[in-house]
Each structure stands twice: as C-alpha cells, then as structure tokens.
C-alpha cells in the first residue's frame, strides 16, 4: 500500500475532503477569537459545522462508491507520513459526530444565552469548535499517535466546556476538575500503550502496526500495549467501573454541552476502542479475545443493571439520563464482546441510535431547564401541559431509549438479542430484555412527572422555536431510523465488516 503514489496528488478540492473535515472547524475556532465579536462567533461556528456535516455526507457516499480513502498529509506516503484513512466504519462515525455538531448549534444559541455569561460566549463557541475538530480528527486519522493528539484537543476543550456550567452551579468546576484528572490519566495510559506498540513494531501507522502484528504474532510488549490502551480508552468511554467522572460532568455541564458530549464524545472513544481491538490488534489474538469475553461482557452486564438501578432512584432528570448513558454504553460493549460480525454491527448501530436518542433527550432537558429553572423532577412537574411540544419529543425519545418497536432503540436492541442468540447465549438475550424493563421504569417516571402531576408553574411558556426545531429533528430521526433501517443497518454491517476483515492487510 505504500507503493500507492497517486492517491495524494490533489486534483481538486474534493480530494482534500478527509483533511478538510477536520480542518474547517479547527480553523474556524481561532477565527472566532480573532474576529472577537460576540455576534459573529455563532454564525462562524454554525457555518463551519454545516460545512463539516456536508463533507461527512459526501465522504460517506465516496467511501460507498470507491472504497477506502487513503489521504497522505503533505504528500508523505504512509507508513512514514501521517495517513488519514476513511473506511466505512469511520465515515459512519464522522457522519454522526458532525451531524450532531451541526444540529446542536442552533439549539445552543438560546440555551447558551441563558446559561453562560455573555462575556464567555465567544470562547464557548471556540471551545465547541475545537472539541468538534478534535473528535473528528480522532475518527479520521489512521495514525496511532495522531489519535492521542486529537483526543487531547477534544478533551481539553471538553473540560473547559463542562466548567462553563459554573454560573448555574459551582459544582461544574469540581466536575470539570475530576474529569480533567481522570481524562488525563486515561490519555496518558493510552500514550504509554502507543509507546509500547511503537517499541514492538517500529511504526505508528495503524494499518502498518496491524500488518506487523499479523506477521510476527503478539509478544508480551504488545499485550502490555493492549492492556494500557484498553484501560486508557476505557476511562474515556466510561466503561462501568471507570465511569465515575461521567454523572457529575453531564449533570453540571451546560445543556448544549451535555447534548454534544453524550451524543459524540463517548461514542468516539468507543470507535477508537473498536478500531484498536479489531483493526490494530487482530481479534484472533487470544489475549484480546479473552479480555473481551471475560472482562468486557461481565462489566457490560453489570453496567446495564447497576447503572439502570441507580437511574431509577434519581430525582434529577439530567442525572438520571447520565446514569442511563452508562447503562447504554454497556449494551454497546456487550455487542463488541460477543466477537461476531452481527454483535459488532449491533454495537455500531446502537452507537448511532443511542447517539441521536440521547441528543434528543438532553435537548429536551435543556428546554425544560430554560423554562423551569432546574431539571429536578419537582421543577419540571406537569410540564406536559405547559410545554406540550418539548414534552412529547421527550416521550418519543424516551420510548426509543427503552427500545419500543418503531423507534431507533428497538433496532439496535433487536440486533443485540439476535447476535446473542446466534451464538447460543440465550441468557445474555434475556439480560438485555430484563435490563430494558429497568429503562421502562425510569422513563415512565419521567412521563408521570411530566403528564400526571400538577404544573409547578402554570404560566410556563413553550420553549423557543430555535430549540424546538433541533429537538424535533432529533426526535423525528429516532422514529425515522426505527422505521427505515437501510442507512444504519447497511452502513453498520459494512463498518463491522471493514473492522473485522479489512484489517489493513490489503488495499
């Protein structure tokens, strides 16, 4: 593949899409600060995010047509130069991340005005763009060290974004600090893992590492690298015992930030985990197989139940959703741990479906917070009457969270159950269904609070249109992707195939 010298000869701007995907938001970020005008920051950010979204759609079609795109930065051929490698798996995740990034922005406008002091608005959009470009970079790149750099770009800006919730509750600051400590430990573990990989293989290009491991087999250094990378990324993913930073960070961050984080940041971390487990370390490699089977599956099941139980007893809507996110991450890891193509596609579909579902829910919470003052059940009681549009969208997304047929959540849970049954693991299928019943309880509690209690404040107005439209786009898409599964299923199956079989061995 290093002999492929034509790929980097730029003929038109279209050949530069893989880098532009990351570069557009990345350049727009300092532009926001340099222009320095509070009113211009939002339009710049919105333009950049929309362009990034358009690029990701275009890339997805391009990958469908021509297969893997290998972009060589500066014309330096891999494995020496940095390669951006877009295949089905990351084209799909890019679409999710940039799509959410673009849809959250119109919603953010009002929410940010209410929750963040005016003098920080420019910096907010700058950090938002940096976070987005970091996440897109992590997904687009095919270079192991590059993943670390982009991961830190997105993490550092995430800490800033979380701490901006300090106007509403000062606990946002300590939440951001805790996240910083744990996130940095995770990222440093990850970079140690990459160091070991480099020591063992002498290269940083993921496809090249995969080839060398496939040829020479694994040794202790590579096993150590695997352990460090899994634990480091596990912190970012919030795999069950490593999830402690998540509830506070989600609860106290500004609503728009929580929406972005819940829908993209953990999903990107899961993508990195998948990429390393399946592309870089072959799944055939015994050590990885045992880790997945005996560590991922038990912890995933534990997350599904323990986190759902905690969610049932919350009195704060936003915090409840944070715990439910930890439980949902359990489903994705379960799909990964099953080690089959169907399980992996279930994980990828759930990654996408849960992303849009949680985005809709957190947007709904943000709208309730805007009018109700807080997300405690007591202050949002009876809002089904005063804010019917917002509440109904929340109910739709809540149904998708449970996995009612006709919603996106059903598709992914159905696939997961099928994947478990395919391997004869009927008890896992039962556990998935049983833990969904817990989701019924916590979602029902919200429905009860919204619809069956007297309004806390009967004079509450419906949320502004700028928030309702993005909210309804997300809520409608949970229904759309529950009925029309062509895009998600075919993309996820192709993604799973490319992760499983396209291990960079051939081009």
């Amino acid at each position, binding site marked *: 593949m290093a002999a492929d010298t034509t790929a980097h000869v730029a003929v038109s701007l279209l050949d530069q899409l893989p880098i532009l995907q990351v570069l557009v938001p990345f350049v727009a970020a300092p532009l926001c600060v340099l222009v320095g005008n509070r009113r211009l920051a939002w339009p710049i950010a919105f333009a950049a995010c929309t362009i990034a979204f358009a690029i990701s759609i275009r890339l997805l079609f391009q990958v469908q047509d021509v297969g893997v795109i290998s972009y060589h930065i500066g014309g330096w051929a891999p494995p020496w130069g940095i390669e951006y490698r877009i295949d089905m798996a990351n084209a799909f995740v890019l679409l999710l991340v940039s799509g959410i990034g673009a849809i959250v922005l119109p919603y953010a406008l009002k929410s940010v005005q209410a929750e963040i002091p005016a003098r920080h608005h420019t910096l907010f959009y700058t950090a938002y763009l940096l976070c987005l470009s970091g996440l897109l970079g992590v997904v687009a790149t095919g270079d192991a060290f590059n993943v*670390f750099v982009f991961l830190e770009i997105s993490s550092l800006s995430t800490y800033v974004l979380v701490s901006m919730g300090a106007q509403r509750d000062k606990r946002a600051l300590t939440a951001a*600090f805790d996240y*910083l400590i744990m996130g940095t430990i995770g990222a440093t573990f990850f970079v140690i893992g990459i160091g070991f990989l*480099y*020591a063992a293989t002498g290269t940083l290009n993921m496809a090249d590492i995969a080839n060398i491991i496939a040829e020479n087999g694994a040794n202790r250094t590579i096993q150590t690298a695997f352990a460090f990378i899994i634990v480091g990324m596990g912190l970012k993913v919030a795999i069950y015992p490593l999830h402690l930073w998540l509830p506070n960070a989600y609860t106290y961050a500004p609503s728009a930030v929580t929406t972005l984080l819940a829908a993209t940041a953990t999903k990107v971390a899961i993508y990195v985990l998948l990429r390393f487990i399946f592309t870089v370390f072959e799944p055939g490699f015994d050590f990885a197989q045992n880790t997945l089977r005996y560590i991922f599956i038990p912890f995933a099941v534990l997350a599904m139940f323990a986190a759902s139980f905690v969610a049932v007893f919350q*009195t704060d809507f936003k915090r409840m959703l944070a715990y439910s996110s930890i439980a949902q991450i359990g489903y994705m890891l379960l799909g990964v741990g099953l080690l089959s193509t169907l399980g992996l596609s279930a994980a990828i579909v759930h990654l996408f479906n849960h992303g849009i579902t949680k985005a809709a829910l957190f947007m709904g919470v943000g709208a309730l917070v805007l009018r109700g003052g807080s997300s405690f059940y*007591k202050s949002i009681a009876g809002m089904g009457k005063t804010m019917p549009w917002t509440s109904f969208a929340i109910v739709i997304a809540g149904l998708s969270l449970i996995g009612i047929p006709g919603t996106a959540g059903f598709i992914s849970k159905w696939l997961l159950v099928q994947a478990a049954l395919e391997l004869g693991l009927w008890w896992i299928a039962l556990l998935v269904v049983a833990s969904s019943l817990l989701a019924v309880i916590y979602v029902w509690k919200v429905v009860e609070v919204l619809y069956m209690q007297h309004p806390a404040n009967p004079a509450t107005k419906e949320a502004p249109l700028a928030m309702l439209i993005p909210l309804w786009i997300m809520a409608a898409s949970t229904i759309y992707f529950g009925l029309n599964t062509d895009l998600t299923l075919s993309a996820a199956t192709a993604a799973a195939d490319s992760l499983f079989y396209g291990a960079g061995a051939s081009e």
Partner: protein
Amino acid sequence: MDWDFIFGHLNYWLFTFVMMTGLYIVIAKGNLVKKIVGLNIFQTAVFIFYISLGKVAGGTAPIFPVDMEIDPDVIYSNPLPHVLILTAIVVGIATTSLALALIVRIAEEYDCIEEGQILVLETAAAQADNEEFGDAMGGRA
C-alpha cells in the same frame, strides 16, 4: 539473579518507578495543586519512557552534517520518539495550565482547594437540593 536484565533495563525501571510515584500522588493527596504536581510527574515518566526508546546504543544526535555528506558508519539515534514527546510536552503544559486555572476558579467559589473540605461543601449542597427537590420522589438527588 539476572543482573544483565536488571541493569540493561534501568530506564524502564526508572520509568515505572516515577510513573507509579506520580499516580500515587494523584490518588493519595487531597490538595488539588499537589494532585496536579503528581499528574505532571506521571506524565514526565512517559516522556522518559519515550525518549529512552529512541536511544540507539552508540548512536549520536540525528543531525545531518553541514556539507550533507553522510558517513554510513555513523550510527544515529531515532529522532521520532523525541519529536512525538515534544507534542506530548505541549499537551502536558496545556493540561497543567487549564487545571491551575480551574483550581483558581474553584478557590474563588469554594474558598478552599482541599478535596476533603470541598466534599463537605458539596455534600451540604446535595442535601440542600434533597430538601428542596427530593420530596417529589422521596429519594436522594
């Protein structure tokens, strides 16, 4: 005792020792600034690891001679890990400065930077939340 093994990997022992020291400080110390000091030591250990990876026995600094005539007998060290670690150092500085800025803000809001005291204040805040909002469901916030 395999002394060759022990002394031959001195850099890795050092790296492990410094790394664990840093990680221990992050976990054990309650003062937020000391936690950041620990985090820095932890990250520095990784720098040592990477830099020692790039060392080739008997190798010299990987710089071309001025006349660009390369003597094939000269052994050079591997510059790539060093370059990587330059990036990691920049990331480390950014993390440290952001953490210190957060500590300043925490000190403004909480009037302390000791984890124990912050926890007391946060528990009190959570209890206040419970009293105000917890009744709705009869549970803890």
